[in-house]
């Protein structure tokens, strides 16, 4: 079994490798902002309970265009990086490496579908503030 495995780098390709690194670097920056906002800017401060995040808290924050941009680009990067990484893992199994096209199509559908779902998810916060 082990000997039959196909080298991942060959299956996954150079672009996948490149985007995995690019998205990783962007994620460090975006996650840094995200964690700072969540834990050091006291999002939940107006209820007096720091751990509690309310619908209103989120709506107020998302009144600023910059946070919408941060949230959406983080989602796009996390999906690109996460699913591209998952693709690498799948290709370490012959079963999936043999069906590259099917796996690729499936992951694109899952990724774009989830991105659209994630975009729509924020709408209530955007109109409710």
């Amino acid at each position, binding site marked *: *079994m*082990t000997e039959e495995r196909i080298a991942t780098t060959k299956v996954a390709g150079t672009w996948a490798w490149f985007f995995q*690194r690019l998205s*990783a*670097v962007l*994620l*460090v920056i975006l*996650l840094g902002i995200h964690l700072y906002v969540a*834990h*050091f800017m006291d999002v*939940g401060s107006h209820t*007096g*309970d*720091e*751990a*509690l*995040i*309310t*619908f*209103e808290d*989120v709506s107020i924050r998302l009144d600023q265009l910059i946070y919408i941009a941060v949230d959406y680009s983080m989602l796009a990067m*996390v*999906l690109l990086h*996460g*699913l591209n*990484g*998952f693709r690498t*893992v799948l290709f370490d*199994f012959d*079963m999936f490496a043999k069906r590259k096209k099917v796996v690729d199509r499936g992951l694109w559908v899952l990724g774009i579908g*989830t991105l659209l*779902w*994630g975009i*729509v*998810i*924020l*709408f*209530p*916060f955007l109109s*409710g503030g």
Partner: protein
Amino acid sequence: MKIGSLKWLFGKNSEFWPTNMKTGMWAWVGHRLTGLALVAYVFLHLSFLSTASVGSGDFDSLMEVTSQPLFVAMDFLLVIVVIYHAMNGARVIMFDLGFGIRHQKLVFWICMAVAAVLIVGGLWAIWDLVFVPAGGA
């Protein structure tokens, strides 16, 4: 896939059997497991946020639950997982750029030392939320 064929993964002679793994292998296995856990978390996170589409009240009652100490403590696990993955990821990218690969073990432990500092910082940031009752601080 046949169960028997998973021996390369779980068997005593497999390269993944704990005593057969060296530092670099542990680093990679850890990276892969944390990466997969994070992908699962993204979907959980989106499904929690989607309760707001049902109604702002639904979102708020879910957030009441997730602000309890137990859930904040689980958030901390997430922080550990992200920091490990990010620090080891930085190490991988460094090697790809041509730095440090000859000292991969040392670089791993340096990255883990930085990770430990960041994790302690994270613990400090959430300490009150887990160990001090709400409103009591």
